[in-house]
């Protein structure tokens, strides 16, 4: 299992002049996995990613990248890393081709393979048509793509993208999102964002940071799983609570007001069909029947707010 991990970080801590920006974060990234790092602004996402990329030294903790220790063997570790910082590190006065050629040399790609690597990176990022244009003359979306091309030109094991969709229009946004999904086929990716839908669109696993701590770390499928046992039902001419509670398979009933109820079924039972049938049979005027889905957005709001609350209480 350990050998499958492309990147692992343990107990990452980072202090800025007495203020703890990142507090005891563990990250494990398996081969071919896309991890979405989510959190409100100032949650410590960029600090975490900069530590993983080796441009910031952690105050404590250990980072292993493709088996190399970032503190002891940074050069070897960084060979396996592609990093797109918050602002794409591009030089306005160079053309896309010149810039990518420099990045390829910087990552030690042999002369013979360089042209090939650049062509592939450009193809992956949809930059074929702009190779000879000056980067400063490209739109923000294209500059972002150049930044991503820079990160993948040497085909690293691990790709770290810090807010790759920030400041883009909806079309560019979709383009970058598709690109990240495509890259995930060959690389392990960590992508950060403060926008939930961005992460939902690309990630396999989501990690929510709040005030420098991990408040949620789950596979996206689990985090989004709908709970079939909890049903919201709307009955215009409904019965009272005890009638509903007496129905077979019902565990608890909770009034939501306005003729709506939240019903929890007994474990292992799907009572949606029988519930609808009973409602129609008894003339309760069924107007709504849905399974209750505590979506990621609600959880995100709850997690980041409740943590705020507890710290407020603690202090």
């Amino acid at each position, binding site marked *: 299992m350990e050998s499958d991990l492309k990147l692992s970080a343990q107990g990452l801590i980072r202090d800025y002049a007495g203020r703890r920006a990142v507090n005891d974060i563990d990250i494990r990234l398996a081969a071919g996995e896309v991890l979405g790092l989510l959190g409100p602004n100032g949650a410590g996402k960029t600090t975490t990613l900069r530590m993983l990329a080796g441009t910031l030294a952690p105050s404590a903790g250990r980072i292993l990248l493709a088996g190399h220790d970032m503190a002891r063997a940074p050069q070897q570790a960084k060979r396996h890393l592609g990093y797109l910082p918050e602002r794409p590190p591009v030089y306005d006065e160079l053309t896309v081709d010149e810039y990518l050629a*420099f990045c390829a040399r910087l990552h030690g790609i042999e002369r013979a393979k360089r042209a090939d690597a650049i062509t592939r990176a450009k193809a992956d990022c949809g930059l074929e048509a702009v190779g000879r244009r000056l980067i400063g003359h490209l739109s923000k979306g294209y500059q972002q793509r150049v930044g991503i091309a820079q990160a993948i030109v040497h085909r690293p094991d691990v790709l770290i993208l810090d807010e790759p969709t920030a400041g883009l229009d909806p079309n560019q946004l979709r383009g970058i999102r598709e690109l990240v999904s495509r890259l995930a086929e060959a690389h392990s990716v960590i992508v950060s964002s403060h926008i939930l839908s961005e992460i939902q669109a690309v990630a396999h696993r989501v990690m929510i940071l709040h005030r420098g701590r991990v408040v949620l770390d789950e596979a996206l499928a689990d985090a989004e799983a709908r709970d079939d046992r909890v049903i919201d039902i709307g009955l215009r001419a409904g019965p009272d609570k005890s009638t509903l509670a007496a129905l077979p398979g019902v565990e608890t009933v909770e009034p939501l007001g306005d003729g709506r109820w939240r019903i929890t079924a007994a474990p292992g039972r799907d009572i949606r069909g029988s519930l609808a049938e009973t409602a129609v049979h008894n003339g309760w005027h069924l107007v709504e029947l849905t399974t209750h889905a505590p979506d990621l957005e609600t959880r995100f709001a709850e997690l980041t707010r409740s943590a705020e609350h507890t710290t407020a209480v603690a202090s």
Partner: protein
Amino acid sequence: MNLAVSIARHELRRLFVSPLAWTLLAVSQLLTGILFALSLTDLSLNPQRIGAYDGVSAIVGGGLFRFATVVLLLVVPLLTMRVFAEERKTGNIELLLSSPASLTAVVLGKFAGLMGYLTLLFALVALMPLSLAFATPLDIGLLASGLIGLWLVMAAFCALGLFLSSLTREPTLAAVATLGALMLLWLFYAVSAMEWQPVVFGTALPLGDAARALALIGHHDALLRGVFSSADVLYFLIFTLCFLALTVVRLDMDRH
């Protein structure tokens, strides 16, 4: 080492696609060219100035190289401010810091790139007195010593500028600090000429001697007079290496 070469080439390329580099070359060429023409005119009007010890090489060459140092004083801060201060401001430094290049390779690469550019400026200045070889016999040894001195001054200025550039994220601040520091080095030379020995607690402090030992321009002056001493050359080498090493240390501190 390959990475340092890549970074140096990248730096040179970026310089030559920017108008700043060409403008600086043009302006310094104009200024040194005018001075060269003026000193030749002066010499042709007052030929009696050529004596037993001071020939054309010493008068024209020495004067030109001294003036070139002043031009460098203004050119180098504008070049070095771009390197770390500006890259930090734009965030492009992250590209280098997250790459497999070591900090030493980054600093050496940047230094070599700038020196490549300055060497072109140097060659243009050097060609002026050397072109006199068609008209009059030259003291090549004297000129060579002066030119080596000029190149070493460039390297020293450049290393100091890189270090000051690595201290800040404001390019203009880096340029002003470098200009100030280079002028301070000049002032050391003035102090060294004063034979100043203030008495503190009954002890005469040889400040004049200390300033002479430290003054960058003084070491250059000896080379301009054709006195090629390894002590002067070592002074420049140590000065340059010290500031390059300090730059590496400073960049490493950034991560912490």
